[in-house]
């Protein structure tokens, strides 16, 4: 019995020490390494216990069951493997935090990008139907935050019809539908209509998951070209 206690105690001590290193690097507590030996040098870490971060502790996320974590990790890795190390370095993304029921100020969210800390927190439970697309959507926010000057929202907004106006923020609107329109009119999804940066992220994510672009309207075509051109400015070898 004492031996079991000793083993459990030593495991606890070991995990705490590891977590400290991660905390020192990205300032998120209660994390452990899931996988760090990846071809593009992304480091996958997961919530061992729930964590709370942010201004006024307004960001919360919870730990997952091992089987669920393993299943989702495979999907996430497959998608993020499409970005090579050079590109990830340029956009400042290195740590992927895996957890579930992610919320910011009690509003559920798919991901929280932080290009300063080189971190993307992903909610493993977010929208099963569009999970893979959402991964790329969140990656775009990292790209956008790292290259604000390239993804000029004024230029972008001018692609839209004259009387169209985005909402003040992505959570200030009811336009949250993620279904891809069968017939587009400048937007891929209802959520695209929320803000310029969400619109860009939706365009990028649709390009990354090889959506059918055969019946795209002229406005959306301009938006696609804008995204593609700017990605090539970041990395001339970037392949969509």
């Amino acid at each position: 019995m004492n031996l079991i206690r000793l083993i459990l105690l030593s495991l606890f001590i070991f995990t705490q020490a590891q977590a400290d290193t991660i905390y020192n690097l990205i300032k998120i507590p209660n994390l452990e390494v899931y996988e760090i030996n990846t071809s593009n040098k992304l480091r996958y870490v997961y919530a061992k216990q729930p964590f709370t971060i942010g201004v006024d502790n307004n960001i919360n996320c919870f730990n997952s069951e091992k089987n669920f974590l393993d299943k989702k990790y495979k999907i996430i890795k497959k998608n993020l493997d499409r970005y090579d190390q050079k590109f990830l370095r340029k956009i400042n993304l290195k740590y992927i935090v895996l957890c579930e029921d992610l919320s910011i100020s009690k509003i559920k969210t798919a991901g929280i990008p932080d290009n300063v800390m080189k971190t993307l927190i992903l909610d493993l439970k977010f929208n099963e139907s569009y999970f893979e697309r959402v991964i790329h959507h969140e990656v775009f926010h990292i790209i956008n935050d790292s290259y604000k000057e390239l993804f000029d929202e004024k230029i972008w907004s001018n692609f839209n019809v004259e009387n169209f106006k985005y909402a003040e923020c992505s959570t200030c609107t009811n336009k949250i539908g993620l279904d891809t329109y069968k017939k587009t009119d400048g937007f891929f999804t209802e959520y695209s209509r929320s803000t310029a940066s969400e619109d860009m992220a939706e365009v990028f994510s649709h390009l990354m998951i090889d959506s059918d672009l055969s019946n795209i309207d002229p406005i959306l075509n301009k938006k696609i070209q804008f995204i593609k051109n700017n990605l090539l400015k970041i990395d001339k070898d970037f392949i969509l």
Partner: protein
Amino acid sequence: MIEKVKASRSEIVILIFVITLAIFSLGSFLLIKDKCLFVKDYDPNKIKFDNPANIAILNVPCGNVIIQLYPEISPNGVKRFITLVKSRAYDDVAFHRVIKDTLVQAGDLEFGKRENIDYGKIGTGKSGLGTINSEVDTPFDFDKGTVALARTQKYNTEDSQFFIVLRDEPLYETEYTPIGKVIYGLKALEKIKYLDKSQYVLRPDFINSIRMLIN
């Protein structure tokens, strides 16, 4: 006439016990007091090195720590380190950040000097030589004994501060610029003063000196 009283057997046993206890107490006191007692002090002149030009000797309270530098991995980082070593800038500089069995950090030339240590600012000081770019692209195993340049949260802010890891830290690869590895004397670093509740050390241990083996 005084009659000579012979000590009984039990009195002799008690006397021996008291003497033994006193010897153990004194011995333990001396052992505990001298933290360097079981630390081997390496003499670099008695060791044969493959590339002596890249050997630096860090002298700390418990003896010598022998570091092999890797200019082929981080040319600018190693160049900066050697520049500061040759100007003796690191002498009497504090190990201001120490995490038990994890890492020791030193090299704040502005606020970490023994004669004018500033506990309010230590860890933020500069060398006056400016910052250098991070060199993190070459694959490198951040195992126990790795010496690397410290930086702020941003890349390309390396200056004079460096740290040495006391355990394997694979997550540090591509985060920090590695400049070398301790090849002898890591035990001396494990004895550097630390605090249980804070990474920053009040009344810290100091670097006695750092010298290149070949000047």
